[in-house]
């Protein structure tokens, strides 16, 4: 994919010297990261390197202890503090997709999608359902609307999870290894939905080891190790000549099996 010029685009996520510890364990060290509007970033790195922690800090599922994280909401720069109002404002703009889907098993697929628009955005039920059905068509499972999550395959569940996050009309989507829990034959159907979403200009941060996805979609690939951003760059450069020794070791491990 040709590298687009994102310099002119506004910055929507800004991490400045972010640090986080679990007790004595320094899980994020001096993270600096700026994400432009409609930029697609793939984050990779060995297990335990802090990839999940990093993106979970952006919507405050984890709390960082030093540095600042700011997200732009409707052009307004909102900083993540312990102020609940800020946290809620940011969460409305930031959708998240988890490795283990985390659909609500007691609700139908349709109710999974409409829950947040109805209760958070106070949207009329009919309107929420129209939006939800539109999204279910986009992820190609409108016929499952009345079923329960337990009745769907893994790939279908993950597509529902994406649609559920999109139902809130977020500007930014976070993906934490969305295909790692899937059987190989279902990976493609989820990646296809994500590629489509990328084509529509969504800002995306994706933790994944699907290097094919990174090559074709990412504007930037970030490699993390031991809580640090070790190397980053456009996919062509990143894969062709990684500069750091740790990146080379990691890439040789995941590309040769």
């Amino acid at each position: 994919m040709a590298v687009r010029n994102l310099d002119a685009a506004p910055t929507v996520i800004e991490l400045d010297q972010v640090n986080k510890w679990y007790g004595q364990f320094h899980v994020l060290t001096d993270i600096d990261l700026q994400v432009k509007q409609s930029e697609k970033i793939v984050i990779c790195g060995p297990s335990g390197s802090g990839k999940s922690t990093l993106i979970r800090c952006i919507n405050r599922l984890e709390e960082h202890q030093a540095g600042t994280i700011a997200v732009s909401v409707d052009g307004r720069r909102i900083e993540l503090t312990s102020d609940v109002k800020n946290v809620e404002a940011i969460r409305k703009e930031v959708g998240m997709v988890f490795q283990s889907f985390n659909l609500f098993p007691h609700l139908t697929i349709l109710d999974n999608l409409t829950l947040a628009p109805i209760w958070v955005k106070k949207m009329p039920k009919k309107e929420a359902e129209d939006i939800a059905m539109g999204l279910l068509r986009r992820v190609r499972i409108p016929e499952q609307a009345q079923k329960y999550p337990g009745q769907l395959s893994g790939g279908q569940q993950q597509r529902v999870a994406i649609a559920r996050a999109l139902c809130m009309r977020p500007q930014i989507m976070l993906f934490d290894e969305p295909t790692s829990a899937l059987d190989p034959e279902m990976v493609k159907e989820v990646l296809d939905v994500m590629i489509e979403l990328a084509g529509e200009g969504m800002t995306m941060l994706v933790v994944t080891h699907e290097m094919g996805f990174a090559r074709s979609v990412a504007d930037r690939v970030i490699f993390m190790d031991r809580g640090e951003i070790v190397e980053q760059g456009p996919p062509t450069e990143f894969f062709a000549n990684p500069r750091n020794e740790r990146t080379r070791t990691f890439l040789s491990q995941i590309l040769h099996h």
Partner: protein
Amino acid sequence: MAIAHAPHAKARVAPWNDPVIRGWFFQIVVVGAVALLAWYLVSNTLANLERQKIATGFDYLSREAGFEIGDTLIPYSPASTYARALLVGVLNTLRVAVLGILLATILGTLIGVGRLSPNWLLSRLCEWYVELFRNVPLLLWLFLIYKVISDAFPGPRQAISLLWSSVFLSNRGLYFPVPVAHDVHRWMGVGLLVGIAAAWGIHRWAKARQAATGQPFPSIIAGAAAIVGVPILVWLLGGAPLDFSVPALKGFNFEGGTVIQPEFTALLVGLVVYTSAFVAEIVRSGILALHKGQSEAAYSLGLTRGQAMRLVLLPQALRVIVPPMTSQYLNITKNSSLAIAIGYPDLVASVNVTINQTGQAVENVLIIMAAYLSVSLSISLFMNWYNRQIALKER
């Protein structure tokens, strides 16, 4: 390979190796043994009672009871029958059990959710509550609470008088005024039913409105207003009769008004604090049993903590909570028989006196067992039905 079995091709099995025949054989043996044992016990007991000239049968139920009961929900006097005395006991047991179940559920759920609060002080307080109340036997709590009520409050003559001397708090209980019986009260009852129906209607309407416009409506407050308001309206239309029977000190105790007796209060408080500690643990573990991803998914969609709890976590936790909750409800019902320790006249108390006076222990024990069994079975059946309603749909 397809395996097709014609019926006649079934391999022949010796009867003692055939699972169906075996099943029947053992069931017949068990039923037969139980029947034999029952027949032996019943005939022996009857023979013994006959030899001791003790009457059998339930004829005594229609005889005059002749004993006083201190706390009754329905009119009762020593001239009433034994049957009525037992009914008074059943109603007293039901009163304390039903109220106990309701209050223990509400309090226990609040405390269980409170223990999961990120607020350090709140979660510690809830933890201490649980540890304090569930680790001391209920009987001791009953003695303690009863003792506190009867010692901490003054006697009737020095009663604490509240609200311009119309409410009196003493070690004889809480005396307060009640309206003198009036025809309008029956219509107020009708008004109450109308109010409940209206509250239900408001709730339906509010749901429809939220579905249509997205605007939530405070249907709980409006519904409560309807339930309280309609009877008051009826009362006003009925000429607002304001005759109250006010308690007043006569001799050593109060007359007039009505009373919540200390025995009832002590038993109810004891049952509620003790059981709510267990309920809190059940609720807490039910919520903790949920995958952490459920609350994270809810938060990431922008739901507040309260919304996530109400819309996502509690409905799922219910599946885990309901079966052990059933046991707690049964425990409250059965533990209410500890009433006898502090003198609350429940079913066991009525039965005890009846046995002493008539000597017909077998019949009375049968009655008490039947009563507890039918209450317990009703609770179980209802809870099992409810459990099936909330079961998850899997593939």
